[in-house]
């Protein structure tokens, strides 16, 4: 950190983002949210994937919370990637926070990680994904079909083929599994 910047922050403290400085991108479906999150984060913007406020909630939704001041820049980036939000709305009320706690169960040879309602189980010796359980959205059987029986290195990333909140929860479990078993 530069000396001048450090001095300025010491005097005034880091700039706090107020709630009304934040906006929400609302997309057609969760898979678009997952794609947009990946693209925006890669460019270094601080965003959060959150639950939508009740007035725009339909059932299996995620929205992206972003600093309003960056709206045009982010929209331009998304446009280049052919991703257009359905709506951009300011944050006026507290948003639902996704689950960020994990539960790990060690079966000896097998390790199971649970995020929200999704569970991913890995054979620790072969690194093969042996089971996916929990969840109720239609991409869960699809994700299981595509991932079970493959090693965690070869299996598709749920971030790329998941489309729902259950798919997003599995992505969290998958990332935690990689953290615990491969890093």
């Amino acid at each position, binding site marked *: 950190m530069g000396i001048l910047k450090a001095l300025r922050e010491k005097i005034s403290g880091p700039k706090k983002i107020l709630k009304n400085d934040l906006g929400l991108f609302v997309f057609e*479906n969760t898979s678009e949210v997952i794609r947009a999150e990946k693209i925006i984060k890669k460019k270094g913007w601080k965003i959060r994937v959150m639950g939508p406020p009740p007035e725009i909630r339909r059932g299996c939704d995620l929205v992206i919370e972003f600093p309003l001041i960056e709206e045009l820049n982010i929209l331009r980036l998304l446009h280049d990637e052919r991703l257009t939000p359905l709506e951009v709305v300011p944050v006026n009320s507290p948003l639902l*926070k996704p689950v960020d706690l994990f539960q790990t169960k060690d*079966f000896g040879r097998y390790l199971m990680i649970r995020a929200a309602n999704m569970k991913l189980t890995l054979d620790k010796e072969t690194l093969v994904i042996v089971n996916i359980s929990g969840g109720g959205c239609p991409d869960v059987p699809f994700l299981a079909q595509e991932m079970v029986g493959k090693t965690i290195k070869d299996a598709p990333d749920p971030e790329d083929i998941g489309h729902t909140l259950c798919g997003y929860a599995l992505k969290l479990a998958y990332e935690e599994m990689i953290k615990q078993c491969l890093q």
Partner: protein
Amino acid sequence: MLAVVGTVPIKDFPLISGDATLNDDCLIVEGHRITINRGTPALIAASIKTALSRGDDKIYALLVGDIGLGDGSRTLYRYLSENLPSYDFDVMAFHYLQPDSDWHNKVLFAVDEMKKRPFLIADAGFMYAAKMSGQSPEYDLFTPDAGELAFLADEEAPHPFYTRGFILHEDNNAPDLISRAYKYDNAAKYLLVKGKTDYIANKKGIISQVDNPSEEAMEAIGGTGDTLTGIVSALIASGMDIPDAAIMAAKVNRLAGHLAKPDPSTQIMSIVEKIPEALFEMAKR
């Protein structure tokens, strides 16, 4: 007759409706062969095994392809909302559909127009939609797992993904979560909760608990909740009342799992295959 409504994980799979049968490891509906991995095909397979063992015959399936984009689910929702009044089912089990509260309500309106209201069972995505719509008491039975029970108990969560941490981590406190779900009208008339201990409950409290045999590996195996829902649906369709069917289903599902000698890598079809033997064992007791 039992009708099962759900999805298969195949893109562009058409909407089909008709009697479901089993052939080797596949489900056959209207000439389509569907692999039984987990999800709605596993539920139907468990229903067929149960129904056949009890001398019943037909399971009706209403299925569509959906890999999570919701397109297939919306096609099925629309079909149900337009055509359900002309059907005659004793029991309907709604399963893996993209949760959508508006479409859910349209389907429920269509159920109201049926000549005879069937027993309504909901699990998975359709149960999420029922809870989010505030219509849970319209259902006769929900079959949540422990995580989904926490979601039902959290009056603010629109999906299990948003279940608040202080509720989510109360796995060992199922009775309190059950009463909390009923307190906020987020439970069906009966609950069959799958977990380390299975609970059968209604608004008045816990009716029964089943915890034997216990196989720890079952928690990791995808589809064990689907088979439980399939077994209880078929038992209710055979004429059993809901509490008895739920207790029997919990015991049969556990015993089928035990007979499969499972480890966390066991696949659900190994357990489905053991359902007739488990039903036979239960009948002897």
